[in-house]
């Protein structure tokens, strides 16, 4: 075995820097004490057990799930069609349209949040879960477009032509040929856009009014030191959920890239 190079050592320490902060949350969520510091006093599941009884938390979770599912469905449908247009058809302004759709990725969060709040109030949409859904769909769209684009990139157009030649209509071809082939991409996009919405805070903070999503609920709890262990437990569950969703999404994204025959 050769001695590891300086670069490799640096790479592994960087990886530790990336992971350690995130791993402290679950570690201290099992700590039998209310102060987050070493040494760990003992191990307990009490903080997790207490979560089940908090009604505002359950309501926030339900809100987040509803917002996430709706935003994922809407952004993935729009992304699916737009990605097909960008990959398959040549038309004037295609690049400009693609650039525009990617814009939500780079606008500072506070500016998106404040300007949407002003817009929604002006057109009569009160701060509510509906407002958050509209905002999250906007933020999630670039993710869905780029995932669906790579799904269509690997799709052989002659398969659709064959279906047409064999007498299938547009809708039947879409349902029986296109959809099955790009479906791993669709699943990946749904999972990723759901995660984007599920974890998003600033926009929901501005737009949710008196219907907090889970991150907004966590924000309200961070201020109370007595609630810290519960917040840690909740945060750890959220971390676990996000990572699990990503791993599943990644699996489907790969399948979509390999599915061309």
């Amino acid at each position, binding site marked *: 075995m050769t001695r590891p190079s300086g670069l490799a050592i*640096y790479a592994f320490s960087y990886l530790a820097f990336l992971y350690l902060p995130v791993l402290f949350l679950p570690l201290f969520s099992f700590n039998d004490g209310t102060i987050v510091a070493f040494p760990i006093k003992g191990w307990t599941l009490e903080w997790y057990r207490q979560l089940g009884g908090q009604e505002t938390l359950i309501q926030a979770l339900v809100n987040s799930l509803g917002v996430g599912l709706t935003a994922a469905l809407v952004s993935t449908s729009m992304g699916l069609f737009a990605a097909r247009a960008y990959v398959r058809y040549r038309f004037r302004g295609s690049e400009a349209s693609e650039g525009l759709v990617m814009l939500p990725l780079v606008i500072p969060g506070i500016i998106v949040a*404040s300007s949407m709040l002003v817009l929604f109030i002006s057109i009569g949409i009160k701060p509510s879960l509906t407002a958050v859904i509209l905002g999250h769909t906007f933020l999630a769209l670039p993710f869905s477009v780029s995932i669906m684009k790579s799904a269509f990139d690997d799709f052989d157009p002659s398969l659709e032509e064959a279906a047409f030649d064999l007498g299938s209509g547009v809708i039947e071809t879409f349902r029986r040929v296109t959809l099955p082939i790009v479906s791993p991409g669709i699943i990946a996009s749904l999972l990723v856009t759901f995660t984007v919405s599920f974890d998003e805070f600033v926009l929901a903070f501005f737009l949710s009014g008196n219907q907090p999503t889970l991150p907004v609920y966590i924000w309200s709890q961070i201020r109370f030191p007595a609630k810290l262990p519960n917040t840690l437990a909740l945060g750890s569950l959220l971390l676990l959920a996000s990572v699990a969703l990503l791993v599943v999404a990644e699996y489907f994204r790969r399948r979509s890239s390999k599915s061309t025959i």
Partner: protein
Amino acid sequence: MGLLNPRSEAAKGYALSAPATLYVGFLVSAPLIILVTYSFWTQSYVTLDKTFTLDNYREALTDPLVRHLLLRSIWIAGGVTILTVVTAYPIAYFIAMKARNKTIWLLLITIPFWSSYLLRVFAWKLILGFNGVMNSALLGIGLIDEPLTFLLYNEFAVMLTLAHAWAPFAILPIYVSLQKIEPSLLEAASDLGNGKVQRFLRVTLPLTIPGIIAACLIIFIPTVGDYVTPSLVGGSDGKMIANLIQVQFGAANNWPLGATLSLLAMMSVGFVAILFVLSASGLGRRIK
């Protein structure tokens, strides 16, 4: 698609991309127009005065607090950008040129990014606190005698937290530009007698400038308007412009001033970004 004439191909393209384009187009332009309109109005308590005035701009531009926070936001975002890109470059280089399993490495780099941003910042707050993880660990192993106080609630904490949060956004664009380099160019440079360092400075680095520029913009632009990090780990010395904007839309209930501040923040970001792209691409040309 040979059966279709180009006209209907274009029509299909427009029809399919229309929902996404119109949705984003509307949600980018409409708020902007309304924000600009609001910035010319004034508000006292709950009454909105819709007479045209430049008072908000006058107030924002003469108030030392606004100028201070805006400059600090740009300074912090700039610092974060440089810190993140400089520390991320070797990782991108390692993954592109040395790592045996690139896919695994890229996956490992991106996984932490998929956890909630709020929670990652919260984790740093717990780590850097006076009675926090870092201080208790250092005290425990006897490296320090009393807790370090310079860790939390200052610009350093904000920069460290943001550099952690944005790491994948620096690594990925640089990795992509490193991947694109033709191995034959590197061989040619070595054959012409360049050492490793010289070859890196004269071939590899200039060819990755587009990736570096992309990384800088992706990090700098959103960071200027970051709200969560300065709120949680910034303390009073680490507050940024987003905190002031939030106050206007929240406790102070002065939406016109908030709108003005949002627009000023956006314009400063745009100005710095354009200046940066121009000077960076000029530098890129000179190296070549």
